[in-house]
């Protein structure tokens, strides 16, 4: 993996920026160059939220993604806003618990459209872990980060008072990762 840029997007409160944080932390632990850039404006809970994470083997110039390798979408507005920007042959990961799969119109990209919130509820008992299920799918299908490094990053980020959320978070990421292997049908690229 020489260069990978991903736009993570959805509503404020869905843990979009946090999912980006985990990926960025994992990339740093992996010895990669990395930038984490939030959308910045009059954001609020329930409004639009997105961040761009760039992971690279070399020094990073722009922290923005004009044609991202991957879009991670947890809301209709974010799908509409970013879907056409994804690079040809790139990857779309969509949480169909929030977004009707019919709205995903791109034909020239790999697609993982799956009910991440329902999976999070069934497997971990928390709808709000959907962001971590999505992240698990992203690192596997995008071949952007190992599960081990992602878990190590989560142990660092969810320390202290957040530690009680950690087992559920870890399980959620593994569920997303395994979904790609077992059910998504997309071609798995190794790291």
């Amino acid at each position, binding site marked *: 993996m020489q260069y990978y840029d991903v736009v993570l997007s959805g509503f404020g409160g869905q843990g979009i920026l946090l999912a980006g944080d985990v990926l960025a932390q994992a990339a740093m632990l992996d010895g990669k*160059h990395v930038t*984490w*850039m939030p959308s*910045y404006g009059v954001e609020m809970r329930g409004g639009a939220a997105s961040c761009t994470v760039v992971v690279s083997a070399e020094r*990073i*110039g722009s922290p923005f993604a004009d044609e991202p390798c991957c879009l991670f979408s947890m809301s209709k507005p974010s799908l509409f806003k970013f879907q056409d920007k994804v690079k040809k042959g790139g990857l779309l990961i969509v949480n169909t618990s929030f977004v009707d799969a019919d709205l995903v119109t791109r034909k020239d990209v790999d697609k993982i459209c799956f009910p991440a919130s329902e999976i999070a509820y069934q497997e971990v008992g928390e709808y709000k872990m959907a962001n971590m299920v999505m992240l698990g799918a992203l690192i596997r299908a995008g071949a952007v980060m190992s599960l081990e490094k992602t878990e190590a990053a989560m142990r660092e980020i969810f320390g202290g008072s957040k530690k009680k959320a950690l087992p559920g978070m870890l399980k959620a990421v593994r569920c997303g990762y395994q979904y790609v292997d077992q059910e998504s049908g997309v071609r798995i690229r190794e790291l």
Partner: protein
Amino acid sequence: MHMKEQRMMHGSIALAEGAITAGCRYYFGYPITPQNEIPEHLSARLPEVGGVFIQAESEIASINMLLGAAAAGARAMTSSSGPGISLMQEGLSYMAGSELPAVVVNITRLGPGLGGIAACQGDYWQATRGGGHGDYRLIVLAPNSVQEMHDLAIKAFELADQYRNPALILADAILGQMKEPVSFAEPKIKIPAKPWALTGAAGRSPQLIKSLYLADGEMEKHNWRMHEKYRRLQEKECLVEQDLEEHMDILLVSFGSCSRMVNSAVALARSQGYKVGHIRPISLFPFPEAAIRDVSQRVGKVLTVEMNTGQMWDDVRLSAYPGSQCRLMARPGGAIPAPKQILEEIKKFLKVGDLLAKSVR
């Protein structure tokens, strides 16, 4: 990359931590987006290290508190954005005239007026031309990464003390809000003695710090002395990053967050066979005139890329070797030039330049 322990961190927090490492123990400020992470962080951190955090009643109060702390010999800082920095200009002019060292951070907004909170470089003129009234300069440093937000905060305190002059860090919401890995400097900070400081006159005669000079010829002498200081800064303290090749057809110049997009554009251009160089002024005052003059003499075509309508372009044109072709790619108002758009400008400039050369022949 594994030399030192790294942490993922916002640029604003990295800057605040750099200030603490530099020995800054006093912060005065008034809230304004997009720089609130700096006072938020320092309000927690400064009491931990025996420092003082004051949320002042206004920016005018903040800058005058800063003047007082600097006059007492302390390392002190304020931060604000656009309109807040405008309010501080009177105090900054007094500090420059009184030769008081301190650090001011401008995480810029759009403008003029209330503008907006997106990233923009429209405060270049205000920062580099003094900003307030009178014949003075600020030391101006422009980071382009989270690591530099940290490192240049320390550098700003060092230069301010060394030259007895206020230093300003010019950044924007991209640099403040972005997270990147950062490794912290070893805290081996030496704060120079300040025999001029107002520390109470016990055991010595009273001292005066002022910017009022009424006697015949006194003010001119003071102005020339400060001018000599700015000349020394120009001679010794220029900070610049140069990414050059042996043969170049075009030189790009950019600073701050904008230089990150230019870095990508340079890589893209080179991958397509274009011979491109890039100079990034890190100190905006002193401006790295010599580097731009020398390289433009070899290259001939200079493209300045800025997130305003063309401000650093003035300094580039003043510095470029006489006869150089100087063009501008400008995106004001929160627009960010995409690397592909910059590449298009490079191609256009090379083409137009060739046409000009042919018509001259």
